[in-house]
């Protein structure tokens, strides 16, 4: 299972021009994602971890082609051949939409308040022209039961405001899965939910991954969630991937100074626990036209002149599928 590549991301970049004025042409760019390389294998779940503003969500939206990349290639291995997501248009893009879906962060925003649950879940079927009305109704009912909204008949023709947050997120999951996609980008699907329903939704997503063979890119800022959900974890910092490894390997042997700092910030359920002083200093720097040196230079505890004078380090294999982008480890 591990050897079949599903998504192959090569040198993916997204730059946003900074608005300076109506007529002036800007040469300031926010480097939301820059030169990202990642292979996602069929059937696995990859976690994408990082702090706010590091480009996690942008990466996710690039992969499902909600936004167009500035540079780079995303090769998606569909059943009927490989497509480059970055250049899809028209009919091919519409077909691609059947293979790839996304679950959004906020279930209060991602469901149209003027549409019933049935209309929301059946929207992809409707747009793609799949099935007749009774077939769609049956498919939606079946799926609602799968995501735990039972009995389906009592949920189908309700409106989002009649549902709780957890139920709404289950509806959003049902909508993402209704076209039977092979790849789903989950953008912090549990972060807006009450802690009491979080595990339920996470368990559901795992079950569905096992049952339907869905591959996830799971975007989160919560390492505990990533550990529960994912086989591999990629850590991002300011648009760059700084570390990538199997989940347990990453959590037990973090190598990049940023990953180490991230792990040391995870709360420990022990009031007498004395926290080691934070290794890193300062706040996240601005991703606007970053200077050609390691992106983590300003905050790094182990950086030296070499890190300042050279471009951002490439992702290097440190053995055992553990990749780190740092000159010093």
């Amino acid at each position, binding site marked *: 299972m591990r050897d079949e590549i599903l998504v192959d991301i090569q040198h993916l970049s997204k730059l946003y021009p900074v608005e300076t004025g109506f007529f002036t042409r800007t040469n300031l760019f926010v480097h939301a994602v820059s030169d990202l390389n990642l292979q996602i294998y069929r059937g696995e779940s990859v976690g994408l971890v990082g702090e706010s503003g590091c480009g996690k969500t942008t990466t996710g939206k690039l992969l499902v082609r909600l936004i167009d990349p500035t540079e780079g290639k995303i090769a998606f291995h569909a059943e009927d051949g490989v497509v480059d997501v970055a250049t899809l248009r028209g009919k091919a893009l519409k077909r691609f939409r059947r293979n790839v879906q*996304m679950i959004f962060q906020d279930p209060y925003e991602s*469901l149209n308040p*003027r549409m019933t649950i*049935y209309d929301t879940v059946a*929207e992809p079927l409707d747009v793609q022209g799949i099935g007749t009305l009774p077939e769609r109704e*049956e498919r939606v009912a079946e799926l609602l*039961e799968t995501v735990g909204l039972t009995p389906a*008949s009592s949920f189908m023709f309700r409106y989002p405001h009649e549902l709780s947050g957890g139920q709404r997120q289950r509806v959003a999951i049902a909508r993402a899965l209704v076209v039977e996609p092979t790849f789903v980008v989950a953008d912090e699907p549990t972060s807006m939910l009450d802690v009491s329903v979080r595990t339920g939704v996470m368990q559901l997503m795992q079950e569905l991954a096992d049952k339907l063979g869905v591959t996830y890119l799971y975007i989160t800022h919560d390492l505990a969630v990533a550990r529960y959900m994912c086989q591999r974890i990629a850590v991002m910092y300011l648009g760059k991937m700084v570390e990538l490894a199997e989940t347990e390997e990453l959590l037990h042997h973090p190598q990049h100074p940023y990953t180490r700092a991230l792990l040391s910030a995870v709360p420990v359920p022990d009031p007498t626990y004395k926290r080691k002083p934070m290794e890193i200093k300062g706040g996240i720097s601005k991703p606007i036209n970053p200077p050609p040196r390691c992106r983590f230079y300003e905050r790094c505890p182990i950086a030296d002149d070499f890190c300042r004078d050279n471009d951002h380090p490439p992702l290097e294999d440190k053995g055992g599928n553990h990749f780190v982008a740092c000159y010093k480890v």
Partner: protein
Amino acid sequence: MAAMVGVRRAWKQRMAAWQRRWGTEVGLFLRQPLALIGLALIGVFGLMALAHPVLMATVWNRARFDPIVGYDASQTPHPHPPTPQHLLGTDGFGRDVLSQLLVGTRVSFGVGLIAAAVAVLLSVLLGGTAGYFGGWADAALMGVADVFVLMPPPVVLLIFGLLLRLNWPMVALSYGVLSGLGAQAVVVKSHTLVLRNRSFIEAARLAGGGHFHILRKHILPGLMPLLAAHAVFTVVGAVLTESLLSFFSRTTYYLSWGSMIWMGQQSFRWFTLEGQWHVILPPAFALMGFCSAFYLVGRALDEVFNPRLRRV
């Protein structure tokens, strides 16, 4: 596992859901006494508008009761106070005031509804396009809107009226264009912008939906409450503007409440209360009632759709 939901049952549930949803909104609307008063008044004016052709065809003698060229020689002098024959008397030209009032209702409905339809259509086309597509379309279309925002419809129409006399469809059309392309377009644009940045639009794109699908299924339904409120307030503005123009005789020789008020103020002195009140008061009250009715309905709609005003 598969829950069989029969088509017939599904339809029933769909209707029930629809009813629950609209039921609450209609309920919130009808719970407000002012909304009921407004609706009742609109109903009365509607009956008045329908009554005129019926009365002309049955009870009223065309020569005596025509609102513009009618003349009753059996009762002099004109203006004549109310009699059983002429329930609201006659004006200075010997024309039946009630007949004029009813015809004026028809003109007011015509002006109001045409202006509202034009304004809503144009504000959606301009504001919706600018808000949804953004970029250059936004810059260009909002430039147009900025020009129209600077032109208050009553003033512009008075100036038009000084150059040439307008008929009432022209007044309605111009009012609709001026208000639809101006402030209303700006409001529709900002509302569209809010809608298009919500993530259910992204979900619709992921479903494979194109612009047409998103506009039809998500943007337009989301704009509907706003458009309803706009339409109602446009009716008020257009009817008042038309009355203003015809009061100042800047319209062609049709009959409306504005020109009736102008007739009335010739035979009635407000400060000394001399003369014939029955010529000026009916159109004045009709105008007030008509505008208040639509205004009340507009306020009630606002109460229902504007969550910040909603009292649960």
